[in-house]
């Protein structure tokens, strides 16, 4: 078999479109997912409450079911109930909820490692629980669990390949689309695999870059 990458050239537009969709989808659901995780971890690390138990249910259901089923449930299930949402929005929602659940648990570990003295100092200075969470607990907790969080976000990016199954035009959808036109499966998937690999490596670099700046206080460096 001879490799012929020139057959991909006419489809460069589709590849770019798929790439952009995957990157944008990952970026916004990472931000939304981490925001969600911060809220869930706050409620779950406080006193037992009805809301806390409900969020616990959400975390467990999400962590113990396949992502593709969650995606189908949101897209097909909700529309059957009369909530019409676009494929792209369903993908965003599924990725956000998925990352939210996993990273809430990771973040909770970081919060529980908070020194009691930090909380007492915050209290003695008059901060409410929410103020102390926001200003005292959250950033060091993120710093502690940052490597695990980075991996989780990359997993969500790679997992986003399945959103092609509900016809979101992401990178995987582009690959399937091109392959069904030019029948050059090997070339197409080789290129797309490399793009995913570069995306994952790039994400790790980007997270490292952001982390070194955001958490500079840990090294005692001049930041």
């Amino acid at each position, binding site marked *: 078999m001879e490799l012929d990458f020139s057959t991909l050239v006419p489809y460069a537009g589709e590849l770019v479109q798929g790439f952009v969709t995957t990157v944008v989808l990952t970026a916004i659901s990472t931000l939304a997912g981490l925001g969600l995780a911060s809220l869930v971890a706050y409620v779950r690390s406080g006193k037992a409450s009805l809301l806390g138990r409900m969020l616990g249910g959400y975390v467990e259901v999400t962590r113990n079911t396949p992502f593709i089923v969650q995606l189908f449930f949101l897209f097909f299930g909700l529309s059957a109930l009369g909530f019409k949402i676009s494929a792209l929005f369903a993908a965003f929602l599924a990725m956000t909820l998925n990352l939210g659940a996993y990273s809430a648990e990771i973040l909770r570990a970081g919060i529980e490692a908070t020194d009691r003295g930090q909380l007492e100092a*915050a209290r003695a200075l008059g901060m409410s629980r929410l103020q102390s969470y926001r200003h005292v607990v959250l950033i060091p907790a993120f710093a502690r669990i940052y490597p695990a969080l980075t991996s989780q976000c990359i997993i969500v990016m790679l997992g986003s390949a399945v959103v092609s199954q509900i016809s979101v035009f992401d990178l995987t959808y582009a690959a399937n689309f091109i392959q069904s036109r030019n029948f050059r499966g090997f070339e197409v998937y080789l290129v797309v695999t490399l793009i995913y690999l570069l995306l994952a490596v790039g994400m790790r670099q980007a997270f490292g870059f952001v982390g070194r700046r955001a958490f*500079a*206080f*840990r090294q*005692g460096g001049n930041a």
Partner: protein
Amino acid sequence: MALVSVNDLHKSFGDLEVLKGIDLDVEAGEVVAIIGRSGSGKSTFLRCLNQLERHDKGTIRIADQYLDGKAMSPGELSKNVGMVFQSFNLFPHKTVGENVMLAPVIVRQEDKAKTERVAREVLDKVGLLEKFDAYPAQLSGGQQQRVAIARALAMNPKVLLCDEVTSALDPELVGEVLRVLEALAREGMTLILVTHEMKFAQDVSNRVVFMHQGRIHEQGDPQTLFKDPKTAELRQFIASVL
């Protein structure tokens, strides 16, 4: 009227009764050193004064504020009382300046410019103005503790509680922290300190309170108390620490 007035204070942890009825009045401007063996209840007593531990029985009055052991908002509690801890507890992700300014801004909603002015004042007072933009990890233990004192002062407390504030420090760093406290005492700040620094208690405090088994066992002015202890327990304690 005394600034701090404690009546019949009781506190138990489970079956263990740690405070068995404490009565203590502290006048404004007074420096009170609480000494005693570990387990005598002195830290618990101090922590009741700003309700980090809620007491079971008895009353505490600080200025015009009554604490009855029921839940109060931290904002209310921090109105009159500041606290400095053994382990500094600076916020590691905030610079020195941010550590000092955080509570005035988010708890008291004071404006930024005024808060920064106050922060610079209190940091100057503890001799660390030039560390305004440094992170806690870049400071020595003694410097961190001085920032912690400045942070408490920025809330303009009527009473400053100090819980073994030099116990976590290397011996050569103890002096710089004690000198700051001494200067505060001279300025008329009301201080209640749990301390193992007997010399400091002797030199700086107006009154020494010896706690033993959850009660105030003996108290008096430092000269008399250290030279001429009335009770056998205090005599033994002094002999063991001096």
